[in-house]
């Protein structure tokens, strides 16, 4: 008898709207309960208690407009959220507070998630799509001072930025930005020079999501086509296509490489979550639970490896939690 298909460990219901983004905060010590933040279409951010599997708090700060990016800024008490109301809000959640302490007006009408990078204690860099269609702006938080604005060369016709990834080779080194554009290309930006150092056409369609492994200098991107593209960065800071992977069904809305860089998960428009080995892109599992498009996947940051989880948010209003570390 074949083993039954894997089931989610748990399903969180009750967002009553499509879930667009997820972010774990489980690194805390014992009295802290593990938490999952979810941002949904109706503009609410739900704070899920992963012990009781229930919503602890609901944050409403985006005027009922879809929230599509949620990040924590060091610990679970400082939260950054980005919504379709063109605002990026900074939250203070300590001691039961739930107030927006600061916000950035992006003036961008797209749905490109911002990218956050901690550069020093209490200092972050944030890349976000700017008001001008093709531009990306990098701000320093919490001071909100602009670091640079990245404009493609005239006539590059990249289209809007679709996804961003700020990274640095090691702590303290020069931060770099990878951006996926509407025309299907991925561009590596040098922030200090404010210039594109490399550009690679990965897809025929807009790049929906990308993730980058700075250790192996390898990244992966997905678009609305049936292809996953893996590319690498050589010593000359040039992007090269490394490999492509054919998918059965078209459309990837999110890609995440697990923090230990061993596997990655994709959120598919075909309602499925796919798990691949990161090294050779060997398909490992297809997690089939959702009844609508999966919007986002996220790995947890539990300190105990065996407790680590994968969460996926879907258009069907549900968040499925999977334990795939066993």
């Amino acid at each position, binding site marked *: *008898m074949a*083993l*039954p*298909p894997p*089931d*989610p460990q*748990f*399903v969180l*219901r*009750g967002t009553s709207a499509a879930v667009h983004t997820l972010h774990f905060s489980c690194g805390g010590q014992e009295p802290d309960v593990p938490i999952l933040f979810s941002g949904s279409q109706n503009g609410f951010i739900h704070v899920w208690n992963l*012990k*009781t*599997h*229930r919503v602890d708090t609901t944050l409403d700060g985006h005027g009922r407009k879809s929230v599509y990016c949620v990040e924590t800024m060091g610990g679970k008490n400082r939260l950054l959220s980005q919504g379709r109301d063109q605002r990026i809000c900074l939250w203070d959640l300590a001691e039961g507070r739930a107030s927006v302490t600061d916000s950035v007006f992006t003036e961008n009408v797209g749905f490109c998630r911002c990218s956050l990078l901690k550069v020093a204690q209490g200092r972050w860099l944030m890349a976000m799509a700017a008001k001008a269609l093709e531009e990306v702006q990098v701000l320093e938080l919490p001071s909100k001072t602009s670091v640079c604005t990245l404009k493609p060369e005239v006539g590059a016709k990249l289209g809007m930025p679709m996804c961003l990834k700020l990274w640095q080779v090691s702590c303290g080194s020069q931060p770099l930005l990878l951006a996926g554009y509407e025309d299907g290309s991925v561009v590596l930006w040098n922030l200090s020079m404010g210039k594109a150092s490399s550009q690679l056409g990965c897809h025929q369609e807009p790049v929906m999501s990308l993730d980058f492994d700075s250790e192996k200098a390898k990244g992966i991107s997905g678009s609305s086509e049936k292809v996953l593209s893996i590319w690498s960065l050589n010593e000359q800071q040039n992007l090269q296509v490394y490999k492509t992977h054919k998918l059965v069904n078209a459309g990837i809305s999110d890609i995440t490489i697990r923090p230990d860089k061993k596997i990655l998960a994709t959120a598919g428009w075909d309602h499925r979550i796919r798990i691949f080995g990161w090294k050779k892109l060997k398909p490992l599992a297809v997690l089939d*639970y959702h*009844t609508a498009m999966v919007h986002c996947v996220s790995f947890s940051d539990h300190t105990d490896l065996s407790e680590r989880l994968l969460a996926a948010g879907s258009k069907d209003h549900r968040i499925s939690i999977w334990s795939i570390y066993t």
Partner: protein
Amino acid sequence: MAVFDTPQEAFGALRPVCVQLTRAQTMENVASLQAHLATVSASALQELQEYVLFPLRFALKVPGPKQERLVQSVVQCMSSILAATCVKKQELLQELFSELCTCLSPPSGSSKPASLSEELKLAVIQALHTLMHSAYGDVIWSLYQPSTLPLLGFAVSLLLGLAEQEKAKQIKISALKCLQVLVLQCDCQEHQHLEEDEAQQCGDLFASFLPGISITLSRVITGDIKQGHKTTVSAIRLFYLIVGLVMADAQLARVPKNKENLPVEQSRISELMVHRGPDWSKSTAEKLALLLHKMVEFSSVHPHWKVRLELVELVYHLLKSCSRSLVDSFSHLLKALVGLVNDENSEVQSRCNEVLRGIAEQQIVAQNRALADVLSENLHSLATALPRLMNSQDDMGKVSTLSLLLGYLKLLGPKINIVLNSVSHLHRLSKALMQVLELDVTDVKIVEDRRWGCEGMCGPPGSLQHGMQKGRCQKKYFRFFTEEKVFQLLQQVCRVLGYYGNLYLLVDHFMGLYGESGMYRKQAAMVLNELIVGAAGVGVDVLQEREVSLNVDDLKGSIMSILDEYTDQANWYLITSIDTEEISHDHSVQHLGLTARPGGACSSILLPSPELLITTCTMNSNIWQICIQLEGIGCFAAVLGKEFRLLLLSALYPVLEKAGDKTLLISETALGTLVDICEACSYDSVQCLINENSDYLVNGISLNLRQLAHQPHASQVLDTMLRHSDASLLPLVEDVIQDVLSALDQSYNNQASTFLGVLHSVMTALVQWFGSSCSEEHQQRQTAEWWSGTLSQGQQVVTRQEVERFFLDYVRQKQVAEGNLPDTGNEEADEVPPLTKLEPNNSDTEGETPLPSHAQLGKDVMERCIHLLSDGNLRVRLKVLDVLELCITVLHPHGNHLLPMAHRVWPALVTRLISDDPLAVLRAFKVLCTLAQKCGDFLRQRFSKDVLPKLTSSLLSQAPASARAGPVYSHTLAFKLQLAVLQGLGSLCKKLDMGESDLNKVADACLIYLSVKQPMKLQEAAQSVFLHLMHVDPDSTWLLLNEVCCPHQYEPPHISLQPVKLSGMGKQRNELTNNVLLLLEKLQQQESVTPWASTPEASPP
């Protein structure tokens, strides 16, 4: 009445009598001295004490034989003097003491006690007693010097002799009392407490007498019961006082290693002295142990309670003072003490408890390792013997054995861990518990009692509560005992273990037993439950607080691990019935269980494959196991209180699963557990519990639905949720019901039956929650309709005026029908049934507003039913028909949606009605009736075209068969079908408002069933058809019936009318006559009664 206060006056008064007495020792002189003494005050007498005593002592000392009575009165007189005065001189005391003793001494040479009169003996004993009380401090102390040892020894042996050999109770008692005073252990308050070194000295001194005293006393104690309880009581008291003094741990500890050498002149005496060294104390303890054993055996069953009470005191006293020296005796002593906890006398009981508590509080056991060893040794041997005792003793015996066990455990208290840490002890104890707690699993009824489908839902509201109570107090039947008290004791034993014991160790051990063999599983679960309860300190009766109070996290940890084990597939999904459907599922579960736990060989023991014979006992045992586990979950909840809310995530789902179980006992127990959980987590009701945690349940259901083949129980959970909640639950579970439907869409072929179960419960719940309102409304409308119908018809009766009016009406209606509308059209408009008027309104509004969710669900389910109606499996088809009927009820108020659905259902339903298994036809016909009730004339055309011909023809063709058939026929399916059709047909005709030709068909088909040859039930059903027809069309029915048989002649009301001729007139009586006449009579009544009720003035003459 002291007359002489000063010594001078007193002297004056007493002198003559004293002189007199000295001269002549006669009774009279003694008496006169006695009389004079009364007139002297105590202080005066004190001064003259020696003077007054002199003649008396002289009288005793006079050589030669003396008159006994004289001696007696002298002694009495002396004691009255001594009672009023103090002895202040050591010599005087010693002399008096020896003189008094001499009075009792046997004549020299004989070893027997002097054969004196009892009165004398008593007087002497009392005088001694008084003497001892009249001396104080150093004076009395002088008596307790090594030098006076012989004298003391003499007195002691004298008194012991009296106590043992005398017949008179009073002498015995007084002798014992006197001895008590002699060993300085008097009860009265006047005596000072002995100083430590004084006590030491006394101990040394009395050690010499100990053998004699103890042996004699033990003989007295174990002597004839007829001696009276007081003697025994005094003897016991004396025994423990003297033993407690001589063997006191404190004293023995201070005894020097070597015997002190006394001065030479006392060397003879020093030989008499005993050295209480370790050797001596050891051998003495051994001897005492023998005596104590004998005494305890005897007096613990002594008929008088005071003796038993004194025994308790003995144990207490010895335990307090000699717990080291007499350690070997305590095995018996404690056994007696613990055994007396259940004494029939409440005073003994309470004192016993008090003593036990005292022992525990003073931590006598806790500080004394040896004593703990003794106890654990006792425990071990008791545990070893327990199974045998449980097998052989009667219930009373079992109670006492178990209270002994409990007592040991309580006494050990925190030291229990010593016992538990020893593998053999723990093993013995647990095995004993396992054997004793074995359940009797032969009762077939437990397996047979089923909870039937959805009856519970329609039951009275109190039934839930009732069920819970029943579930709670469901009595367990044990193999080895029936007495409830025995079970309670066992419960306490487990709880005390849990209270003091190392919880991890215990839980681990009993979990081991739980997993070890199916034999022990139920008992181990029971023990585990009680352990946890005890560990939390709930309902446990202990003697002392435990040393470390419980850590809630530890408790929670243990509970979680037990809970995991309980709800593990292999232990939770057991075969409890031989329902084929369930077995097939369980079979697959078993496979899953085996793959999930490849090492778990036990799961195969527990889940025998269905090929093996599953005996009733196995099932009964499985049922009990589940119940015990459920009870356990209830206990855990109670113990953790609100903390349990966190565990609901994993615990609630399995419990609800069992609440939906088909076995009555399981479902009731599960309900009890639910109530417990409610209370513990402070939810107001089960409904609250379910609603507030519906997210957990829904999650479980939805995940399990994905693997329905392995988890057929998901439907049970949903079923239970629906059953115990109300409409407010619907929004919460809607999501999951949609999951069910989509899962069904994925697998129509194989799992349809299981899904239908779920759908059935969903629809039943919807009908219950939302059905009542719409059906009520519907009924009102119906009755209104009926009234209007009967009213219009009821007026066509007998009187000429009415005939005339009828005729005129008829003409006018005919004109209307021909399109000749009169001006006054209002009246006709009124006659249009309200239904048709309402209908368009309803549909207008409904077309715009979306369906309420429950109706939408009903519609969705109905959609699936259409597909499943033609399933290959008869069972499935039957189930579908049931669900369909419920769907129709739910959808009924929304005609706009129901009618199209009905339209779609129709072809499939007709096929069921016309060409299917009779069972399905029967069910389908019921659905048809419901549908007709709800859809009304929408179906008329289809019915008369598609179904009616078939029905009537089958009725007609079956009629001869049923007419011929014997009594067995009523059990056949054909009969049931006929009956159902006949019973339903009437109302169908009415509901569908059928046309005349169809009505005729029906009437024709049913007429033959009015035959008296038909079974009674069919006749009645056929009658009901006609009764309905009478409502629909009384005239034609009347005519039809009269054509069969006409009892009356009808005179036309006017000569101009033709006489009435009916074909039934004058016919011979035949098989139909009976029923026809009956029906005509009813018709007559109906025609006459109905108008009365509404228009009394129109009543016929």
